[in-house]
């Protein structure tokens, strides 16, 4: 589904990503882990078009999307969430989710201004779909609230609803449970699991190891911009390179 080949990104002379190659298979949940500063968010930003990679290629569903602008990548079927929540606080919850359907809302400003019947009809359908998405995350009763007043956990839920509402082929999730308590984390984990079972392809960046080990099909480990391991949760758990990256070199026991 998504293939990265020798992906590199330098900020000035500093390599944030260095020849990273891996594949996200269709219908699976791939987790991307690594210590702080390993380049996980940079990688997500390079794939989603927020940053332009300096080398290598990103192939999505057979098409080369390297360095394309973010909106084109969104139109090709990749949705994402942001680490530091990017909801629109002044819009209502429902409108926030509806922005997730921007790709289907029609692009012509002129048609929108005339509010032709076909657009009204489409608008109604989009609203129904947005309500369904809110329902999936148990947020229908707050649909008309301004998003800014929601609790942190609710905001995360709305962002997930927004990312999934357009049925994207691939969803990039940048730390969806950061800052949530155990109960909320379990709830989000459950929802991610359901998305996975429903056949979505997911690329998850996460620090919460318990969650990652529990729901991932495949784990990729980054350290200092390089891919140091990949495989099933069990393989990664026992990989000495991974332990070293996380816990430091254990010379005494070696």
């Amino acid at each position, binding site marked *: 589904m998504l293939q990265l080949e020798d992906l590199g990104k330098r900020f000035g002379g500093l390599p944030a990503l260095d020849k990273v190659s891996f594949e996200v298979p269709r219908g699976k949940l791939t987790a991307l882990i690594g210590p702080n500063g390993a380049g996980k968010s940079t990688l997500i930003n390079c794939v989603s078009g927020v940053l332009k990679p300096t080398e290598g290629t990103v192939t999505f569903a057979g098409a080369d999307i390297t360095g394309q602008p973010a909106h084109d990548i*969104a139109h090709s079927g990749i949705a994402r969430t942001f680490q530091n929540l990017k909801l629109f606080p002044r819009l209502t919850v429902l409108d926030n989710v509806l922005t997730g359907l921007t790709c289907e*809302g029609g692009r012509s400003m002129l048609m929108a*201004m005339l509010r032709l019947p076909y657009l009204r009809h489409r608008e109604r359908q989009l609203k129904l779909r947005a309500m369904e998405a809110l329902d999936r995350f148990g947020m229908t009763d707050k649909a008309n609230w301004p998003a800014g*007043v929601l609790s942190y956990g609710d905001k995360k839920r709305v962002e997930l609803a927004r990312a999934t509402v357009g049925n994207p082929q691939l969803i990039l999730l940048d730390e969806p449970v950061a800052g949530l308590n155990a109960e909320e984390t379990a709830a989000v984990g459950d929802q991610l699991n359901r998305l996975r079972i429903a056949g979505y392809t997911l690329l998850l960046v996460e620090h919460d190891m318990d969650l990652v080990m529990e729901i991932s099909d495949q784990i990729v480990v980054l350290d200092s911009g390089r891919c140091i391991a990949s495989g099933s949760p069990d393989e990664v758990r026992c990989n000495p390179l991974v332990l070293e990256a996380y816990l430091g070199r254990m010379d005494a026991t070696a």
Partner: protein
Amino acid sequence: MTGKQKIFYFLYLHRTGLAVSALSLSLLVYPFFQDNPYTLGLSNLIAIHVIIVLGLNLFIGFAGQISLGHAAFFGLGAYGSAISTVTFDLPAWPAMLLVAGLVGLVALLVGVPVLRLSGHYLAMATLGFNIVIHTIMLQWDEVTGGPSGFSGVPPLSIGDFAFDDEVRFHYLVWTFALITLMLCLNLVRSGVGRGLAALAGEETAAAALGVDTRRAKVKVFVLSAVMASVAGSLFAHCYGFVSPDSFSIFTSTDMAIMVVIGGMGSVWGSLLGAGFITMLPEWMDVFENYKDFVHGGILVFVLMFLPQGLVTGLLEQIKIKMALTRRKDAAA
């Protein structure tokens, strides 16, 4: 649902349509109660400002950009209509369309490079553009009539019916203002409108959702310029006279103040903002000489305490209070 609830639900569901109808109706009968030409003249000026401010609010409030140069487009529309009908003897309606198209083109040419800027830089660039246009109006005597202005612009007419007194202007300009209002209301309630709101909120997020941010900004800029141009044409035909004074950077800042007073991103607020700032000099003619101080003071005050604008800001505070109360109730 009880009968009462049904009525409220109906009102809620059709609130936009009902509000537009109520406004249209009251404007329709307004001249029957108010025939003082001076008062009508003021309300006509409000309508012309409303058209500009609606467009500018799309640009400032929805696309999240800033322009301190919209008086230039307003002036280009006015001078365009004046010159093409008097100097070139073109019929007024087609001239208006032609001029709007040309102004749109100018906005496109200016917008593509200038909208790469943002914030203060964009404000400066648009301000500079306004000064350039204003200087041309002042200096190019042979074409524009120079500082003394350009007179003898014929009124608009349909067949033999000429819009040549205040009551007739009233119907003409308010028809245009209401059509613009409806077009804007439609736009902001559409997917494209939500894309613009997203753009105002957070550019990176908007792009990740599929909004072509650069293109959207240019499109809204051109759209607002075309609206300002139409307002300019109406202005020229209604007053029969245009002079560079009406299109200086102070007019531009007044337009921006109207947007801020009405509230950024509020279509209805644009009406209030345009009305309030147009009427303000009437209410305090004692302060005539200090107009710019007062306007500047209002702008600073509003931006300091209600950065979303006066009307939107207040409404938002209320909405947030309500939502927070509900949240507390839900928790309890």
